[in-house]
């Protein structure tokens, strides 16, 4: 090497100082951040007498609190809409806390932003589990994001409950026993929508419009199980990063599709409608409930109702859209669940509109509280898992859950409805099915329970 020799030992000492300084800085930075630790995990859990004293029965559980964590897209391109869910869940938890908590314990909900980036998800979930010592991971949102952490959670034996995604990948009790889905999965939804289309639009030309990821692809899978191939004249997909869907709409129109089944997020349902307007194309839209919340959709098109000289009316644009729902419609004020959740929303989350995302957040939070009550007075992580596997009451869902030791699927059915006057009008009873190509679709004859008077699930 031709590098000059170190001129003096002073320089060498300075270099050593730098290294030490770096190390000290790292240590200080490490120590700086708070790391909460809950009480020691004691082994026993007595899920017995209602007078047993409350103990710190599991990591994340103390005598007075239960801490759960979540990863959510609070910022970034996926945040619009989805960022309303966690505050709504938190609102319901606060309501429960104010009304006796879970056996007297208050729920502390720590949800962290992952920007819909799986790398960030991996980081914040590890922070929640390894540093914040949460009892369970609740409502982790997103398919690619949650896939980044599902193996980690299961290897750490953390209950990973009610993942906010309709992927069927959460139903794998043999490989991921701690993971449970909750919402209606996309294949089931596709089947129900498909059967409706096949029955009500016999002889018409059908076009598909779907997001080109697992959400859209699974939905199309379900549709194909029910709609004869000969009826489908066009299959167009989109990616959320490209808002110019004029080519896709042009293709649908050129194929003559009279009915378009759309597995799209709300922004793209709105864009579909608006772009169709440009080419004087007015197919009947059948939209997945992911992208059909009337309040969100009206919000997206409202500006177009305000322009001068135009003949476009915001609500008119979304009227007549056929969709499905696995929770009661937000417009159904007579429903006891909607009344309860609206009350909670008005008290704890009033800034947000009372739309589909808020309803979702509260409903899944309700389900979690119900599961916690079932997990016992001194719950452990294992007791939560067995509580869910033992089956949960339907609660606000319109069809039963499929939880058992062999299935970690959540809601199994959905009802059809049409958007009229800016709200979803339910039509008929819920239709339940499975995720196979030949599984039948049957009407659910049971009735939805009423919401508990106190608003809190009973133990």
């Amino acid at each position, binding site marked *: 090497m031709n590098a000059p020799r170190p001129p003096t030992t002073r320089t060498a000492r300075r270099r050593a100082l730098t*290294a030490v300084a770096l190390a000290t800085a790292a240590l200080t930075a490490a120590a700086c951040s708070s790391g909460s630790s809950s009480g020691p995990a004691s082994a026993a859990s007595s899920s017995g007498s209602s007078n047993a004293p409350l103990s710190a029965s599991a990591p994340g559980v103390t005598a007075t609190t239960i801490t759960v964590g979540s990863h959510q897209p609070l910022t970034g391109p996926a945040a619009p809409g989805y960022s309303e869910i966690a505050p709504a869940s938190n609102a319901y938890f606060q309501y429960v806390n104010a009304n006796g908590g879970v056996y007297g314990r208050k729920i502390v909900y720590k949800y962290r932003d992952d920007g819909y980036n799986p790398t960030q998800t991996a980081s914040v979930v590890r922070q929640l589990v390894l540093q914040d010592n949460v009892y369970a991971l609740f409502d982790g949102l997103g398919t690619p994001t949650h896939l980044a952490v599902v193996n980690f959670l299961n290897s750490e034996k953390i209950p990973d409950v009610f993942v906010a995604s309709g992927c069927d990948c959460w139903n794998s009790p043999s490989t991921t026993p701690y993971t449970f889905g909750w919402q209606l999965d996309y294949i089931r939804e596709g089947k129900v929508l498909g059967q409706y289309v096949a029955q009500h639009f016999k002889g018409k030309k059908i076009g598909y419009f779907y997001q080109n990821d697992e959400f859209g692809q699974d939905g199309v899978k379900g549709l194909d199980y029910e709609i004869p191939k000969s009826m489908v004249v066009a299959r167009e997909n989109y*990616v959320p990063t490209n808002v110019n869907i004029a080519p896709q709409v042009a293709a649908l129109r050129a194929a003559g599709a009279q009915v378009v089944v759309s597995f799209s997020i709300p922004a793209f349902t709105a864009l579909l409608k608006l772009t169709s307007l440009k080419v004087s194309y007015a197919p009947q839209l059948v939209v997945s409930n992911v992208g059909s919340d009337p309040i969100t959709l009206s919000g997206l098109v409202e500006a177009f109702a305000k322009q001068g000289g135009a003949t476009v009316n915001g609500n008119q644009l979304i009227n007549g859209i056929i969709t499905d729902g696995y929770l009661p419609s937000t417009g159904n004020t007579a429903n006891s669940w909607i009344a309860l959740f609206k009350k909670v929303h008005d008290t704890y989350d009033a800034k947000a509109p009372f739309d589909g995302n808020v309803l979702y957040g509260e409903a899944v939070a309700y389900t979690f509280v119900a599961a916690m009550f079932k997990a016992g007075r001194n719950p452990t992580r294992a007791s939560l898992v067995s509580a869910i596997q033992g089956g949960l009451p339907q609660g606000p869902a319109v069809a039963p859950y499929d939880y058992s030791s062999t299935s970690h699927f959540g809601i199994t059915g959905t009802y059809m409805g049409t958007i009229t006057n800016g709200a979803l009008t339910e039509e008929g009873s819920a239709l339940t099915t499975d995720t196979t190509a030949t599984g039948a679709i049957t009407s659910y004859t049971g009735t939805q329970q009423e919401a508990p008077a106190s608003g809190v699930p009973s133990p």
Partner: protein
Amino acid sequence: MRRVLASIVIVAAVVVLLSIKLNAFRDYQIAEIATYTTAVAGLTVLTGLSGQISLGHGAFMAIGGYTTALLLLHLSWPFVIVLLVSAAITAAAGGVVGVAAARLSGPYLAGATLMLGVALPSIASAYPGTFGGDQGLTVVFNAPAFLGANFPLTRWQAWVATATALVTLTLLASLSRGRIGRNWRAVRDDEVAAAVAGIDVARARVLAFVVSAACGGLAGSLLAVITALVAPGAFPITLSITLLTAAVIGGLGTLPGAVWGALVIVLVQPYITNVAYSHGLSATTSANIPIAAYGLILILIMLAFPQGLQGAVSRLLGFGLVPLKKEDTSERT
């Protein structure tokens, strides 16, 4: 070079100590820091030493990551081999990019690399059969058996990542101090003069891309095994941009600067998030505050320390060495 090796050994010892004393999440952060250091080191060499701006470094991380994921999925090679193969394949890709970029300069190079960073991960979405689509590919990575069943995986990940980072830094330091590094600096400072002096300008520039891509590939490989997933969503354009800001904030063209930059990437936002959390602000606000603060910090650091953090540290410790980059006294044309 002896000084460099001494510092490397000290850092390695410190990291091992920290990884044992700190909790598992901190170990994970050490692994993250080491991963980003590897990536940023490659970028700082490319942009700082050879003067070629790259806004698409994340694309090389994606190539390394996906190669690793596919190799681990379909073949059961030992991880070291997988790591080296990923680096080699990414280096080859870097060569291709370097050749394409050889005639580009300044903003044109920036635009081309930006588009590379945006477009490359979408290949995985377009061909889901091989690359897993939007859901990506899961990566399984375990601590070796000889460490015992109770050895925390995060500590092993921290060690593997740190070892890779330190080896990378050593190799880059050696390159930088040698003829290749001198050629890069010559080409960066004045292409015409370098050519007159007999340096093969195009070759030097392509080599810089190859080396930098190899580092990116290594980093991508590490990212794949510590996050256990590769998916297009893990390599957004913001990753490439973050890597560039880290390189400049840390001190462009300096290897310690790569470490500073990585520390900023990994530690600053979670720290601010915790602070915002503890003040009980609303959800939307406390999610956006770390982002706004991060942007503000970037601006302030650039205005206060134009040579980056390493430049400030050098001045503080009184090194006062010859500046690594020729002062910009010439007029821009």
